């Protein structure tokens, strides 16, 4: 209990002092996880929509595979990305290992299946409601997908949040491909791991509290955005 109280005090102190190291870590955490979430959404939402409205041979196994990939272990993703980006790997010439870009790549691979699987489910449910009306209007598949993505936007915000939550909280992948290098690839989760291994539990806990606050702030911002733009929709 004493440690938790100490940690909360330390966290508040770090925040109030606008500690430069802490701000750097927080900024990098946000940069990496928001970038990964954005890329995963740009790729994953249209793919989820395509899977929601199309029927093709082998669709069932594809859905099972994507759903299974939602549970990808971060360390495995980290290891696979590491093997590709290491000097002897096929993409080693890019020189991306131990950079924030490598961390973004790893987190994107980690959360893209979440975005695809959840958006597919959300949009398929929406399409069930709209399908006959869309057929009646003789819309093209592209028009249907665009309409579903727009009309499902509020539910898709939540899908993006789920992806962001997974990205910002994971440690295994960014540790392996980022290396937890101070002032270069150290993010909240790897910093917490480091401080814990050093026995500096109050600081680790303080960082944990900051991470929690960060995740809640992003969630609140998305909900605020949703409330502010919900005027023209019955979500």
């Amino acid at each position, binding site marked *: 209990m004493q440690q938790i109280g100490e940690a909360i005090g330390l966290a508040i102190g770090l925040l109030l002092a606008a500690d430069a190291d802490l701000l750097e870590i927080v900024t990098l955490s946000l940069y990496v996880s928001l970038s990964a979430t954005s890329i995963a959404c740009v790729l994953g939402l249209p793919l989820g929509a395509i899977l929601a409205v199309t029927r093709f041979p082998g669709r069932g196994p594809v859905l099972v595979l994507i759903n299974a990939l939602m549970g990808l272990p971060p360390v495995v993703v980290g290891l696979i990305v590491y093997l590709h980006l290491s000097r002897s790997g096929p993409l080693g010439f890019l020189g991306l290992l131990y950079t924030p870009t490598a961390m973004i790549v790893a987190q994107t691979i980690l959360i893209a299946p979440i975005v695809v699987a959840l958006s597919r489910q959300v949009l398929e449910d929406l399409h069930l409601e709209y399908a006959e*009306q869309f057929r009646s209007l003789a819309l093209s598949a592209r028009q249907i997908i665009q309409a579903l993505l*727009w009309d499902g936007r509020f539910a898709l915000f939540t899908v993006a949040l789920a992806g962001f939550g997974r990205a910002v909280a994971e440690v295994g992948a960014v540790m392996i491909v980022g290396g937890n290098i101070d002032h270069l690839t150290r993010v909240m989760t790897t910093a917490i791991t480091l401080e814990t291994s050093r026995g500096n539990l109050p600081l680790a806990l303080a960082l944990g509290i900051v991470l929690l606050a960060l995740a809640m702030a992003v969630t609140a911002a998305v909900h605020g955005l949703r409330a502010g733009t919900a005027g023209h929709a019955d979500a």
Partner: protein
Amino acid sequence: MPMPERMARNDARGARACRIELRSLAYDVAGTRLIDVPALTLRPTGTTVVMGPNGAGKSLLLRLMHGLIPPSSGEILVGGRPLSPEQCKAQALVFQKPVLLRRSVAANIDFVLKARGKDRSRCRDLLDRVDLGSLADRPARRLSGGEQQRLAIARALATEPDTLFLDEPTASLDPESVQAIEGIVAAAARDGVRIIFVTHDVQQARRLAEDVVFLSSGRVAEEASADAFFNGPETKVARAYLSGHLDRLVET
């Protein structure tokens, strides 16, 4: 679309374009024949009301004619040619329960205008035609039932259809909303849109119909002009339906 333009287009495309012919049309589900129409030709203009008791196949027939579901056998000809996706675009269907997009009233119309490559400046005019101009910025799904149905009709008219199918659009609406919708449909008919209106409300059919197709158990029991049908129905089932004693016919 302004009325002169609509009439000019209707003249140019010709009434023949709206003639719908059903030939040996059948629709089966799990071995049960739900629709069985050996031959039926709907006249190319005006308002046809499709009537019949619940389960007669009225909505199913409408969906077949609009190409939403393929027939099990037989064919549907529009303007003498088999129903094609391109011809389906010249038709529009208003469902009993409108499915509106999660957008504003105006955005629901604009979506269709944009999707069909129509003049998007017509949005306001279409909303005014259904008396929803003052609600253009409202969320569509927060309108009353009658307003939602009027919006659905405006959206259907936005596609500039030759033929407008309406599947019991006034079911469960109050009399004022029913009157408003009947007025909109009548105005569309005057503008040259071919109307095919499904209802089981006899009084409404009397108000709207120029001719009537009466369905019973998936078959066309009677097809006649409105005057002939309402003044002297030929079949026992139609007589029983119009007199409100269909239950007695079923019992006997």
